[in-house]
């Protein structure tokens, strides 16, 4: 069944996925097992995106279907939690309120088993540092669509150094105009072009 459930979500078949999840739960299958099957399907979605078969609307749809499935599973978990693959703090940096790209990346990371703390938009460096300290996250993601966000990213990276956290926290950046030059300018560790690359960076660092 597991493989089939994964396949259904990877085919973006919303109705059949939700029906199959309900059937599994009714049969008494461990909800955590169902969740793991769904995550395998989401990994397949990520692979297809990387291969250029799937595009942004497909990622969005898979995220929506996953959310719908999790809503069915969650009440049955009774406090048990799926094993997290890692903790990540993410947000859009100060001076920028764009969040679509960040939200899609966060959805994909969560669907793939990461615990993501979303700070929201227009966040000062201090907010990233405090959240990373509080959660012990080894990875922080900074998002920004505007070129003026470069300076905010740089300040945020510096704030981690000032707080003495830079050697234990990896910082990745993303957003429209970001590339390797911006990584060098801001002092971050790496950048990602799309949610697929964000997933690979999470596997490497989180």
């Amino acid at each position: 069944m597991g493989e089939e459930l994964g396949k259904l979500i990877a085919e973006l078949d919303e109705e059949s996925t939700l029906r199959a999840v309900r059937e599994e739960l009714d049969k008494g299958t461990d909800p955590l097992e169902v969740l793991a099957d769904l995550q395998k399907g989401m990994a397949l979605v990520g692979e297809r995106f990387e291969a250029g078969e799937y595009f942004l609307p497909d990622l969005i749809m898979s995220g929506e279907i996953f959310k719908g499935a999790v809503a069915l599973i969650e009440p049955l978990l009774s406090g048990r939690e799926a094993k997290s693959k890692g903790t990540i703090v993410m947000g859009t940096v100060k001076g920028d309120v764009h969040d679509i790209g960040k939200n899609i990346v966060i959805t994909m990371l969560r669907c793939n088993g990461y615990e993501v703390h979303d700070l929201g938009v227009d966040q000062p460096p201090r907010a990233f540092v405090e959240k990373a300290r509080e959660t012990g996250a080894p990875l922080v993601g900074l998002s920004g669509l505007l070129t003026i966000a470069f300076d905010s990213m740089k300040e945020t990276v510096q704030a981690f150094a000032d707080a003495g956290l830079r050697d234990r926290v990896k910082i990745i950046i993303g957003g429209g105009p970001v590339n390797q030059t911006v990584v060098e300018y801001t002092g971050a560790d790496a950048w990602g072009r799309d949610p697929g690359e964000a997933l690979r960076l999470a596997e490497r660092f989180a």
Partner: protein
Amino acid sequence: MLTGIRERKMLHPGDTMTAEERLRAAICLQMPDRVPSAPLIYYFAAEYAGMSNHDLYDPAKYNAAMRRVFEELGGFDAYNWLNVYYPQLIAFSMPMRVLEPGYDLPPDSIRQFLEEEVMEIGDYDWILKICRRFPLLAYPRLFSRWIPRIWEEVGEGWRFYAYLVPRLQTTLLRWRWEFSRWRKRGATVLSACLLEAPFDNFSMARGLMRFARDMRSIPEKIERAADALVESYAFSIKWLCLYTGVKRICLAVHRSSNDFISPADFRKLSFPSLKRLVELLAAEGIASVLHLDGNWDRNLEILRELPAGHVVAEFDGTTDIFKAKEVIGDRICIYGDVPANLLALGSPAEVDEYCHRLIEEVGRGGGFILGTGCELAPNAKPENVRAMLESVTRYGYYRGGSGRAA
């Protein structure tokens, strides 16, 4: 006056064509005297002139800032512009809620768009109905429905027209005056206005998440509604071109790139209405400057179907512009693409090297306009902007080029 005999003012000592002649030759895929330049400048002007971004809402300050950029950083052939003096008017191009410097954001911030549901799901059917009843006036009818959802103070029905018509009229008169000033300086004007293609309007107005669902659940409705609007978009654009004296229109197609939708969806849902719009405009002698943000690598072949010599493809540094030259360069004028991050973080030598390569490779044989892709980064270094603008006189003269076919 917009018509009548004007002095043939040359921008640079080595020029043999006016800026307008040069731009037209490039768009018609001919070889001008040299490569024309047309950077898209807005917030950079405020930064350069030491103003706040909010100051650009003041026509006198905006024009003074733009003039300084033009006169002090090397000049450009075509004025490519984004100024509106009333924030409500932006919604005619991009129907989204917008946060404005000095109103919703600190005066030095830059305009930011929010993805909210301006277009409701029932609007697809409403559009089909309104297009049957008012085929040429559906465009203003549609925006009289959407804009009050973004700006409460605009009001609906007659209040919409009472609020916006005087502001639109004032703006158009100002633009006409500004365009005449640019022509006197020896530049020309790139576009009568910046609008969005119908499919991309839907994507912005629905919001990305909702629109992704629409594309799966009601694709034929999207396609039909976009197609139904073509006549009224063409009619409005024709009127704008007549009023401003510029027979070119910028059409933003920024939600149709490979970053947003698949090539198959582009072909099926976005391209048919875009193509018909471009063809209707071409039949009126109006060239379409397609603002193609994002990655278009896998859509290039499809663009070949657009009418040759009537289209400009503006890339922003994400698409492989060198490959684009090979794939569509014989049919479409290519425009771009000095990247924002290079202008903000690079050195003048790096900018010069990149522009040189663009001129040599993409400019080969004509059919090329040097530009910034999307908007010139507000924090671009002035010395980098100068290096970019001067590159067209340093490397851009064509041997024997004077408007002959490439």
